[in-house]
């Protein structure tokens, strides 16, 4: 049963603030789409419009041959009849019902066999013997699992999860993230997961849509979006550390020469006809060396000085002024080996294939 969700709508939140969504989602395959963007970008609004809890002002939402919403005809199918699962950020477990009663709430009556069904659903989320307990006695991870089990009780055709990991304590987030990934892969129902966390997006998603400034900037395979952001907003929100303006001087044999600040970069990525570009470089693709070391195969050897050193857990973020500010991530042992302090002269090496260009509109 391959139904396809086609959403194209606009919801105004205030006279000068609106959210526009344009994307498609295939069902019939376990496809996890991540809706990614900073807090306040409107991700939850999009999810609520899909669930039927908020009403867009323009556009339409179709699921298979059903029309869920159409602003031009006034069709707006109620959340009850969309038959989808919507799990809010705080999981929305009913505090006055037991775990079993919570799960049965979503079932279409039929008390015979309901108990077995509850047990089966709890097994799907790796829970046992919690049916009689109150949600208030469960841990954060258990609550999430109960909410997922309850969401499945209705055989939803689409799963919407709003920041599923945000309510969990940090140590719990890693294992739950992997578990959620396996869960979403195993159930064969397409899902849309809202998150502002890069690691969530990379771990959970097959595809991602990047929302920023009220509209979706890019939809694509997660890795593609991370390594080839479509514009500056996407690059900034997926966390590419160095995004600087540059000018393409020359393109030969698929290798572009881009002038950035005072230096020329060799880039193995060309945009046909583009001259003004943004250069995006991920910090983990930058290697730092002390000067006078042997020449390597890398195209770009940039001489500069350390301007700042910021420890971040096991790694250190080093910013180098080499005609423009370039950020690199290295390990602590590497920092000690190189004896880096602010002002240390060094060479930053970037492979031409690690540099990504984004077309720049010149106003």
């Amino acid at each position, binding site marked *: 049963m391959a139904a396809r969700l086609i959403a194209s709508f606009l919801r105004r939140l205030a006279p000068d603030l609106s959210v526009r969504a344009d994307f498609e989602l295939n069902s019939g395959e376990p496809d996890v789409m991540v809706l990614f963007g900073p807090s306040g970008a409107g991700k939850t609004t999009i999810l609520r419009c899909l*669930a*039927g*809890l908020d009403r867009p002002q323009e556009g339409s939402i179709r699921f298979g041959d059903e029309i869920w919403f159409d602003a031009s005809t006034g069709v707006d199918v*109620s*959340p*009850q009849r*969309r*038959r*989808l*699962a*919507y799990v*809010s950020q*705080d999981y*929305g477990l*009913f*505090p*006055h019902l*037991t775990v079993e009663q919570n799960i049965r*709430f*979503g079932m*279409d009556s039929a008390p015979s066999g309901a108990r077995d069904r509850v047990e089966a659903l709890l097994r799907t989320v790796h829970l046992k013997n919690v049916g*009689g*307990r*109150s949600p*208030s*006695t469960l841990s954060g991870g258990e609550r999430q699992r109960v909410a997922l089990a*309850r*969401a499945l*009780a*209705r055989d939803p055709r689409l799963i919407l999860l709003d920041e599923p990991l945000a309510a969990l304590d940090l140590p719990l987030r890693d294992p739950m993230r992997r578990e959620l990934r396996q869960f979403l892969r195993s159930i064969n129902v397409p899902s849309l997961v809202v998150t502002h966390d890069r690691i969530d997006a990379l771990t959970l998603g097959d595809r991602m849509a990047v929302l920023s400034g009220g509209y979706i900037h890019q939809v694509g395979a997660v890795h593609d979006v991370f390594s080839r952001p479509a514009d500056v907003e996407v690059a900034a929100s997926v966390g590419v550390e160095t995004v600087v303006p540059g000018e393409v001087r020359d393109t030969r044999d698929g290798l572009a020469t881009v002038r950035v600040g005072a230096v020329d970069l060799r880039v193995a990525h060309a945009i046909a006809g583009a001259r003004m570009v943004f250069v995006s470089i991920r910090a983990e693709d930058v290697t730092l060396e002390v000067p006078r070391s042997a020449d390597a195969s890398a195209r770009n050897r940039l001489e500069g000085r350390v301007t700042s050193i910021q420890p971040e857990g096991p790694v250190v973020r080093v910013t180098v002024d080499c005609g423009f500010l370039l950020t690199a991530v290295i390990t602590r042992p590497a920092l000690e080996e190189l004896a880096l302090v602010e002002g240390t002269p060094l060479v930053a090496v970037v492979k031409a294939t690690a540099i990504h260009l984004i077309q720049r509109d010149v106003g």
Partner: protein
Amino acid sequence: MAVDWPAIALSVRLAIATTLILLLIGLPLAAWLAFSRRRGRWAVDAIVALPLVLPPTVLGFYVLVALGPRSPLGHAYEAITGRTIVFSFQGLLVASILYSLPFAVQPFAAAFAAVDRGLIETAWCLGASRLRTFTRIVVPLARPGIVAGMVLSFAHTLGEFGVVLMVGGNLPGRTRTVSVSIYDDVQAFDYARAGRTAAALLLFSFVVLAVSYRSQRKSGRTWPHA
């Protein structure tokens, strides 16, 4: 009689009937006030709150006029039952319901409005109709507020005076309530009987409040631990 027992019994009967009927009409009305986004909501809010600011005699006067034998309502009632509605228990009941309306509806509505909106929406997404969501999720979660509204209506009806006097008059056994009885005794300088009746009412009120607050405290925990 040392204590005006018939008056106490009548007051208690009136208070119970008023509370039950207010529960019946107050819950839907409060739900509408709490959840509706209609434009005219403020007007209904104001009407429900009117008895809070209106002197009981004014309210009683209008009820008397509206239910009197010359009014269409009173006339119809008389044609059907052969009795007048004013100066009867039924008349008192109508007046009491109007008079105590805000004491039931306002706590109900406040309790409904305080129920986490997210839980209501979750119930909808799980396929529950608005009615099922109301009865299975909203009402149980709003229970403390509903109990509070019932206790207030009960206490308020038990103690009403002006409205009763206007609409019910002072017919022993039929419309003479506790407060009217005490007032009569004081007027007749029978301080001893007034004091005993007042003490009986005081004790009864305390017991009702104590019992209901105790049940509140028990249900304060969201779930009895197994």
